[in-house]
């Protein structure tokens, strides 16, 4: 609805309406950036409606957005700053004031910096939101390079795309006649955002849709072709598709000659990867591999939307670059209907990460580089892999991190190796948890900081392509008035670098960020439904400029040393990695470790996103929990039948690394050799009488189940921790498991 309609409704009902940004895709901060009208009655936030004026959601909203009042008023909200008084993991705390907590954190971090160096502090990154740059700034101001990025989301694709193609090739949904959604879920997480709406629009336009993933989700149900590959085998599929298009000469030779480097070496190299070879690994038939490869190569306006699914395997970098090369040699780069290089707008908000202060010394001190040090910093600055930060506490290699802040992130359920994570948190010198509601890691915290939701504060703003909108306070803070922004502003002042944080003033900081756009926060706030910007004119075939783009490394070297698509990647080869994409098995798989198949005959993987929860959050909201009350194992009817498993039965899923107890959902749309579930389960829902589940064995935390073997579970270049293993599934009799 539009603002006038929202005001009329509010007036009829005796309510007030506040235009603002939805805060449900992430803790305490605007997420997908949907515009909302928030309705308040007698001081209570009661409901929301989608804002027509926002180009992001155009009036629609998802289930999560509508559950916002239940999140704000949840009995799981953190109400006071807490200090640990029991043992780590015990969860015994005393209440302290915000200022006492800030003082204790500041003193500890200063002391640790003196004793162990600034790099002894790491911050585990929450989902990327408008607060992220402030967290990076805080670390640089303190002198630590250890921003703990997950290593399994978005940056993995960005890195490999940039070092192969010079840029992230965006799918051209509007002009395409064929869209391949590859390891991609275009609907969940942002069901009303652009990718989901583009999917629907393409469908209405009669575009041919191909979905490559192990199970049928709603988008696959609406697709024309489903390619049901085994989890973690995307690289093998992509290599075989390259084999087909090269063997059958379905190539753009002019583009290859002018703009690609190393094609001849690829042509020889790819002989070893025919579709018959890939069939044994991926479980996709030779015929289907050939069909899809030909369809893509021979459809002029064809695009690939490569999703997060490829970022969870030791072959992730090779999968992403094989797909990049496929786009390039078939002539689909930066042409209408293909994959586009989108020029960023000239006037964006000011970057405030202090990246100009990053030194080689800081890069050298990374505790567990997300990308090899030769390739740091990347776009988000320097980063260590989230899990490797925690692992350092146990191994002291190359040194032990001593202090960790987890703002809006839950290490035990969000990264792999939950058993090691719990051990690390128990051993860690100093651990700070900051969140809106209870988190899985909280019992291990030395200090817990309760945060206000974005419905309770006046900052920050949402800047998405085409729209800039202020976050407006809907209600007065119910518990803590302090936000995730306040946490880092207050800490900076207390630690003596307040000058780097606008002397503690968030409003000054926001004005500074907005300066290039010629607005202040006050002026932006006066625009009830924000400011819209029209996209620049489309331009194509910008190869000369994109292929010579400078990387964010300190030496300013270009991404592509030859100014061409790096089919043979000399930058990787010189750093000691493979110059051409290869296949590498996951640590446990049917073809890689057949000896495990007797005890563990099925492949397990997990879903990164869901239709009703944000990552590991919001299981405590009744509206959302009722949609999906229990963790469910998607299992093929035949696979279930031979195990005497019926729909809704409790089952034990056991891998070489642990076991979980969840319910079976008989699922016709999944590979019979594969079972899958959603990640992030631990939290109960008080309103529905549902208790928390164990974080380790016997619970429903899938991250416990995977290998974290340093030699096998990672991609050597881009981290991409594995989320495949082998399991056995058995029915739990009488619902009990000893």
């Amino acid at each position, binding site marked *: 609805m539009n603002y006038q309609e929202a005001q009329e409704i509010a007036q009829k009902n005796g309510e007030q309406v506040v235009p603002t940004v939805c805060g449900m895709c992430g803790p305490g901060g605007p997420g997908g950036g949907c515009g909302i009208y928030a309705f308040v009655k007698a001081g209570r936030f009661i409901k929301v409606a989608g804002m027509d004026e926002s180009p992001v959601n155009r009036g629609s909203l998802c*289930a999560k957005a*509508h*559950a916002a009042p239940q999140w704000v008023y949840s009995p799981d909200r953190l109400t006071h700053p807490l200090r640990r008084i029991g043992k780590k993991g015990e969860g015994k705390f005393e209440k302290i004031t915000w200022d006492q907590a800030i003082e204790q954190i500041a003193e500890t971090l200063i002391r640790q910096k003196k004793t162990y160096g600034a790099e002894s502090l790491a911050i585990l990154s929450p989902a990327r939101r408008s607060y992220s740059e402030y967290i990076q700034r805080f670390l640089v101001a303190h002198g630590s390079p250890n921003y703990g990025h997950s290593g399994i989301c978005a940056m993995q694709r960005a890195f490999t795309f940039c070092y192969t193609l010079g840029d992230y090739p965006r799918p051209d949904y509007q002009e395409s006649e064929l869209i391949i959604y590859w390891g991609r879920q275009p609907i969940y997480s942002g*069901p009303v955002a652009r990718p989901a709406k583009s999917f629907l629009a393409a469908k209405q336009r009669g575009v041919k849709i191909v979905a490559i993933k192990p199970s049928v989700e709603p*988008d696959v149900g609406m697709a024309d072709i489903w390619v049901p590959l085994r989890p973690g085998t995307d690289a093998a599929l992509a290599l075989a598709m390259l084999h087909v298009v090269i063997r059958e000469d379905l190539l753009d030779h002019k583009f290859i000659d002018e703009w690609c480097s190393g094609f001849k070496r690829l042509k020889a190299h790819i002989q070893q990867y025919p579709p018959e070879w890939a069939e044994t690994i991926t479980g996709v038939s030779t015929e289907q591999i050939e069909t899809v490869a030909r369809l893509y190569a021979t459809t002029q306006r064809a695009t690939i939307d490569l999703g997060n699914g490829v970022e969870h395997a030791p072959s992730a970098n090779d999968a992403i670059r094989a797909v990049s090369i496929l786009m390039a040699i078939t002539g689909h780069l930066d042409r209408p209907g293909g994959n586009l290089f989108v020029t960023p707008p000239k006037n964006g908000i000011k970057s405030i990460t202090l990246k100009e202060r990053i030194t080689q010394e800081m890069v050298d001190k990374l505790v567990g580089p997300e990308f090899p040090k030769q390739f740091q910093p990347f776009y988000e600055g320097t980063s260590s892999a989230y899990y490797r930060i925690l692992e350092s506490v146990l191994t002291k290699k190359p040194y032990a991190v001593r202090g960790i802040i987890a703002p809006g992130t839950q290490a035990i359920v969000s990264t792999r190796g939950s058993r090691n994570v719990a051990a690390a948190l128990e051993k860690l010198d100093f651990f700070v948890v900051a969140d809106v509601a209870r988190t899985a890691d909280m019992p291990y915290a030395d200090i817990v900081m309760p945060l206000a939701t974005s419905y309770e504060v006046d900052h920050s703003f949402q800047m998405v392509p085409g729209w800039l909108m202020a976050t407006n306070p809907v209600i007065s803070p119910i518990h803590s008035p302090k936000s995730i922004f306040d946490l880092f502003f207050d800490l900076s002042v207390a630690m003596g670098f307040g000058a780097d944080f606008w002397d503690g003033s968030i409003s000054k900081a926001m004005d500074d960020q907005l300066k290039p756009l010629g607005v202040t926060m006050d002026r932006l706030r006066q625009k009830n439904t924000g400011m819209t910007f029209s996209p620049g004119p489309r331009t194509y075939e910008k190869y000369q400029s994109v292929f010579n783009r400078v990387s964010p490394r300190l030496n300013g070297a270009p991404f592509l040393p030859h100014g061409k698509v790096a089919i043979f990647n000399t930058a990787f080869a010189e750093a000691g990695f493979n110059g051409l994409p290869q296949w590498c098995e996951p640590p446990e798989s049917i073809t890689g470790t057949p000896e495990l198949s007797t005890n563990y005959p099925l492949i397990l993987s997990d879903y990164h996103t869901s239709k009703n929860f944000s990552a590991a959050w919001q299981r405590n909201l009744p509206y959302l929990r009722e*949609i999906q009350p229990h963790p469910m194992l998607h299992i093929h009817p035949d696979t279930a039948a031979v195990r005497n498993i019926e729909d809704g039965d409790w089952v034990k899923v056991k891998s070489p690394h642990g076991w979980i107890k969840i319910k079976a959902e008989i699922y*016709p749309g999944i590979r019979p050799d594969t079972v899958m579930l959603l990640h992030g389960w631990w939290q109960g829902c008080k309103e529905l009488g549902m208790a928390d589940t164990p974080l380790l064995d016997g619970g429903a935390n899938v991250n416990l189940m995977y290998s974290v073997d340093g030699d096998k579970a990672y991609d050597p270049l881009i981290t991409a921790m594995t989320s495949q293993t082998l399991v056995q599934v058995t029915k739990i009799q009488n619902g009990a498991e000893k």
Partner: protein
Amino acid sequence: MRMNNEYVIWFNHEKCTQCHGCEVACRSWRGLEGQGLLFRSVINVWRGNYPDAKNHSVSVSCLHCVEPACAAVCPVEAIIKRENDGVVEVDESLCIGCKACLDACPYGVPCFGSDDVMKKCDLCLDQAVGESGPPCVATCPGDALTFRKLNPKEKEAHMSYIFGLLE
């Protein structure tokens, strides 16, 4: 008796991505906090077998049937079909909570709160919902739900369509 005006919240499964936005928008706007209290549910339906297994979504709510089976079985005549707009209305003061309507409804629509009184979609006709229509319609990202006025024949065709999707 057949009415001339038959209102409906029309559903098109080809535009539904199963996001459940409509379901929760309805609960939030209508204050349906009790467990299982839903005027609208989004359902996943399977067709075929692997590797040709497909799914589709159905957003199910009261269709305000031309000849409502719920009204026919209600022993206390708590359910009536309104003459002017074809709305199937429940008189909560008469309902005895026998749930005969739930057994009779081909779409599984009637729901019962802790007071055991039948509740269901009333098309938000008496609500201040604005020009965007009922919250379920307003929130839908794909326009899979639209508010429409039909004649009885069109309404029956839509009822058959929904029934077919659920089979």
